[in-house]
């Protein structure tokens, strides 16, 4: 299998497994709804189908058994209970392991033979005898296929059939009562276009395989009443037929003619095909008979084999139709495009600067039009990388179920805003931190049932995952209705660990910050879930690496809410350029509130500026970057905000808006906390992008430190 096919197969299989898992989890909470069982069944069936195309025997045979069990469940023969769901979830996990094996290109080695044997045994008890197609799909045992032999029936209805009271569906249903329908192909190609269609005439036809214990004569009698309006052809059981069908079903999808499919499967030789085509061409009637008809009439190929070939062809057509709309693109190509768009943005900024200097109105006008288009291109390109956060959220129902079960807690998970989009590269990096937070909430946040009941709360705990957009950010909330954070406990632990002084007076926010310090854990019992050394400090670091931040709100006894705020994209931002001496810095535009001239209204000893009568803490960039003291006439103040807080950044000059393509910092700057990344300016020089959250924290901290020093 080539790599594209492999990637597609893995991608689709994982999506389907996720669907199946969701359906199973819902089944557990909502009871045996037939729609959910159907959803699980469909997922298993589709996985089997795709695996069949690549002859992934380990997957096809396993999903077949799984399908049998789901089929029995669907028909009400099996009861859905938590054990049943657990078993099926384990099957999902095993299938996922098989899919992982495809990724490692070791798809023909069973990753876990013991688990497989164990699962198959348990599934086998639930669905004892496998029927019909099972033998086909498992293949390699033509004798059993022959033993299970079936009739092939071709049904053609008279156009008047329905008006005469013969409903094709009812006839098929009647056949189902006589035995098991192994395959059924509804011919829809005989139905004319809507404008030529008489809705009261019947255009349906079926090719079907029926496995039955009744004798041929009995079967024939079943058609006695319908014989006048339905032409029936019956072919007795044949063993080779099944082999050909199996081969055709296993062929890779590509547009091929029925004849080619038949030759490829071995059901027909090339000469036979040529003869049949000749005789088709020589037929005197108009329109000429279909190839299938000729082949059946000349007894070259059994009708069910042709039916299988037709079905194959039909499904290829369907797939092509879907593929045309959705283009699958290698993520790397997309990244290359985004890089190029970045270069385009930089170049166009450069052109803008040069044109600006030339001061030719026509050129400036053309440049501004061009700039606008570049901006659109940038937005569209970034948009292509946006994916719904649901991709991350969808793994949580399973996680919550498993963790809650392990800890003996009862927890209901609510997910909202799953359609909220963010950059693909961030989605991948968010998965682990979120997982950790969720586990933490279940483990430490939500109390055991007994404790909840004692506190007069609902026995079932609630955990909520919610995402939404806010200005240029995505906000993700993880909220539980557990016991809340206990200030004293956190503080005591922090003192014990030597993280703070025993007599430190901390605000609530500062106490919450302690949770994110390395080596902090308040769990009395270190469970194997969240007390594993990976602390919230790692979570915080991961979020910060994405230029995001975490905020905690809590109410004792009522719950805790963690809020993660992230920029929508990591690639390109709108920025505001300022300068200190000849060095240019870029401030992310979304955090700039206003710019004012730095007049005498400042209190240099406390670093406070009076902005319309309100005190505003400020910080001098030149101090941060160790430049010489200012000797010019006038400085400017850029007011920036972060969350609720506002501070001023004092700079020499204001330059203006720019688009900044974010480049990672070289290792020299890693230690500089005031800088988040770098960018390339229009003239080709490098500028640093300021890390506003850190600067705001520093300025505000300096003021409060000054205040406490005075007190």
């Amino acid at each position: 299998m080539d790599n594209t096919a492999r990637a597609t197969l893995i991608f689709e299989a994982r999506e389907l497994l996720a669907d199946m898992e969701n359906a199973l989890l819902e089944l557990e909470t909502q009871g045996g709804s037939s729609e959910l069982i159907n959803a699980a069944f469909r997922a298993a069936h589709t996985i089997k189908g795709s695996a069949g195309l690549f002859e992934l025997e380990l997957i096809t045979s396993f999903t077949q058994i799984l399908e049998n069990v789901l089929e029995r469940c669907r028909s009400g023969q099996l009861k859905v209970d938590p054990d049943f769901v657990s078993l099926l979830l384990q099957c999902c996990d095993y299938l996922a392991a098989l899919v992982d094996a495809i990724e490692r290109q070791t798809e023909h080695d069973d990753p876990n033979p013991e688990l497989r044997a164990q699962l198959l045994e348990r599934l086998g008890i639930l669905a004892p005898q496998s029927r019909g197609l099972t033998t086909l799909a498992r293949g390699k045992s033509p004798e059993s296929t022959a033993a299970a032999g079936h009739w092939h029936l071709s049904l053609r209805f008279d156009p008047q059939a329905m008006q005469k009271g013969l409903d094709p569906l009812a006839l098929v249903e009647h056949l189902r009562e006589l035995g098991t329908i192994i395959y059924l192909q509804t011919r829809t190609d005989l139905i004319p276009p809507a404008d030529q269609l008489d809705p009261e005439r019947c255009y349906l036809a079926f090719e079907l395989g029926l496995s039955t214990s009744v004798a041929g004569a009995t079967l024939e009698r079943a058609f006695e009443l319908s014989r006048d309006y339905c032409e029936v052809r019956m072919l007795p059981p044949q063993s080779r037929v099944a082999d050909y069908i199996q081969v055709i079903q296993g062929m890779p999808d590509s547009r091929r003619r029925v004849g080619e499919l038949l030759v490829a499967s071995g059901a027909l030789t090339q000469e036979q095909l040529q003869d049949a085509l000749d005789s088709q061409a020589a037929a005197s009637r108009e329109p000429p008979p279909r190839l299938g008809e000729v082949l059946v009439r000349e007894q070259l190929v059994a009708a069910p084999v042709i039916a299988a070939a037709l079905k194959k062809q039909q499904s290829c057509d369907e797939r092509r139709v879907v593929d045309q709309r959705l283009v699958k693109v290698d993520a790397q190509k997309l990244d290359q495009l985004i890089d190029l768009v970045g270069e385009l943005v930089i170049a166009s900024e450069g052109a803008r600067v040069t044109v600006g200097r030339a001061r030719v109105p026509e050129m400036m006008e053309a440049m501004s039009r061009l700039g606008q288009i570049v901006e659109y291109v940038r937005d569209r390109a970034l948009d292509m990388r946006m994916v719904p956060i649901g991709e991350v959220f969808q793994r949580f129902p399973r996680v919550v179920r498993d963790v809650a079960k392990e800890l003996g807690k009862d927890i209901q998970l609510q997910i909202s805003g799953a359609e909220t989009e963010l950059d693909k590269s961030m989605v991948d990096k968010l998965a682990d931190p979120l997982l950790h937070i969720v586990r933490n909430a279940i483990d430490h946040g939500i109390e055991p049932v007994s404790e909840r009941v004692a506190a007069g709360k609902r026995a079932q705990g609630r955990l909520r995952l919610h995402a939404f957009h806010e200005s240029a950010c995505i906000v993700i909330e993880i909220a539980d209705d557990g016991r809340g954070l206990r200030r004293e406990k956190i503080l005591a632990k922090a003192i014990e660990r030597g993280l703070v002084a025993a007599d430190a007076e901390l605000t609530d926010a500062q106490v919450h910050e302690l949770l994110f310090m390395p080596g902090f854990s308040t769990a009395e019992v270190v469970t194997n879930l969240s007390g594993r050394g990976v602390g919230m400090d790692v979570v915080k670091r991961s979020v910060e690496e994405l230029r995001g931040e975490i905020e905690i709100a809590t109410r004792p006894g009522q719950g805790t809410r963690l809020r993660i705020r992230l920029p929508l994209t990591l690639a390109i931002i709108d920025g505001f350029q300022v300068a200190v001496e000849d060095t240019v810095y870029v401030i992310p535009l979304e955090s700039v509130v206003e710019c004012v001239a730095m007049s005498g209204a400042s209190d240099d000893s406390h670093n406070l500026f009076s902005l319309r009568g309100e005190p505003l803490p400020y910080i001098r960039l030149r101090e941060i970057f160790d430049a010489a003291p200012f000797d010019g006439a006038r400085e400017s103040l850029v007011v920036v905000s972060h969350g609720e807080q506002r501070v001023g950044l004092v700079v020499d000059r204001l330059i203006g808006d720019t688009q900044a393509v974010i480049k990672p910092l070289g290792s020299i700057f890693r230690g500089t906390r005031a800088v988040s990344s770098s960018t390339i300016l229009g003239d080709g020089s490098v500028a640093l992008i300021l890390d506003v959250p850190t600067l705001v924290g520093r300025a505000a901290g300096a003021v409060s430190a000054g205040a406490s020093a005075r007190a």
Partner: protein
Amino acid sequence: MAMTAMFNCLEPRNGVLTLYGELTLRHAKQVHECLFGALQRTKALEVDLLNVTHLDGAGLQLLVVLHREALASGKSLRWLGFSLPVQEALELLQLSELLGTPGAVLWS
């Protein structure tokens, strides 16, 4: 008295069609008119089959043609839901794969 067999369709806004009652031979002409009328009026058709109480060969072949023509004419078609009788009929004739699942947008 047995309830009168009925069929009805509602198209509250362009592109959303809800079918009620029997999709059967008895109402085939009306169903035909209503399905293809709605398809003509929109580029993206959504059909709600949750309230269909009965589906026979006549109704079924109309759904197949609707699906085929929507795709052939470059329009999108989405089933908003299948009632149990619809699901059963599609499964019986193994047409679920061809017609797609409720909720999925089928494009041409």
